[in-house]
């Protein structure tokens, strides 16, 4: 009969078509996964920078507004506004303008496109302290990538920290191009790995390395050279001119 004749090829045909459909769906899923990964790269390396730069700019001008508004008499050790940010970091060698510095190194803070000073595991010393290590962290890539060009910093380069009243001019004296992520000794108030043995006024920059990963940490150490009072026109020190 015609019916039984056509049955066997039809079943084969059906099985083949079903297999093709399954393979097709798997292929489409793989393509979709690839597209999503490409989108994630775009998100990480571009979109987070857009968001973070926008946020950092907003917060930075907020801090500057506050500085401009506050009368000079109100400035004392107690008048420090730490929540909004304590000042701006200028590293000419990194060619990225000014970086707002805020308390904390959690991802919520750093993702705003700012640098954070450590509160744990080792509490940072403040630039205005008599001695201590002002330890900072910021993103190497994405979220503003504020320390992207950390590898361009050479020994002898200036690092300037700007507060409402004072320019703190540091000079880079050592770096560590690759160290373990667990190396918290770099944050010590006297960072021995940098070759220092006496208390002083140090500054430490930390970020991840190599670029686009976070396998290791890159460390740059600087020491305070001098301070300058901020004048009425906020004339930057000669290192930034």
């Amino acid at each position, binding site marked *: 009969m015609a019916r039984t004749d056509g049955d066997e090829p039809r079943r084969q045909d059906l099985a083949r078509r079903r297999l093709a459909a399954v393979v*097709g*769906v798997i292929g*489409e*899923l793989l393509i979709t996964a690839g597209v*999503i990964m490409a*989108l*994630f790269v775009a*998100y*990480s390396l571009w*979109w*987070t920078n857009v968001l973070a730069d926008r946020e950092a700019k907003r917060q930075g001008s907020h801090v500057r507004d506050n500085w401009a508004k506050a009368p000079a008499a109100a400035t004392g050790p107690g008048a420090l506004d730490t929540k909004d940010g304590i000042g701006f970091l200028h590293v000419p060698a990194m060619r990225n303008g000014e970086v707002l510095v805020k308390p904390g*190194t959690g*991802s919520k803070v*750093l993702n705003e496109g700012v640098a954070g000073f*450590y509160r*744990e*595991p*080792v509490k940072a010393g403040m630039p205005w302290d008599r001695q201590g290590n002002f330890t900072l*962290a*910021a*993103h*190497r*890539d*994405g*979220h503003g990538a504020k*320390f992207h060009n950390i590898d361009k910093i050479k020994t002898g380069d200036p690092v300037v920290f700007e507060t409402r009243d004072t320019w703190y001019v540091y000079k880079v004296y050592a770096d560590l191009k690759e*160290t373990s*992520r*667990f*190396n*918290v*000794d*770099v*944050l010590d108030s006297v960072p021995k790995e940098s070759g220092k043995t006496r208390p002083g006024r140090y500054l430490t920059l*930390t*970020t*991840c390395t190599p670029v*686009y*990963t*976070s396998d290791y*940490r890159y460390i740059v150490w600087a020491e305070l050279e001098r301070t300058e009072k901020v004048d009425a026109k906020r004339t930057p020190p000669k290192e930034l001119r």
Partner: protein
Amino acid sequence: MYVWIWRHLPGNAWVKALISLLLVLAAVYVLFQYVFPWAEPLLPFNDVTVDNGMPVSNGTVAVVR
């Protein structure tokens, strides 16, 4: 999968293309706004601090994770 979606979209080819474009944009929006921000901290690409989240005792590093 995509063929199945295409077949179930209403209208002629132009309308289908337009709806597809909107669907793609919606998917990208959801990814950028919700999925990637959620996924990013779970991926090991962007830790910049030393001893991130690890408690320290007596100067030695205790790894708890």
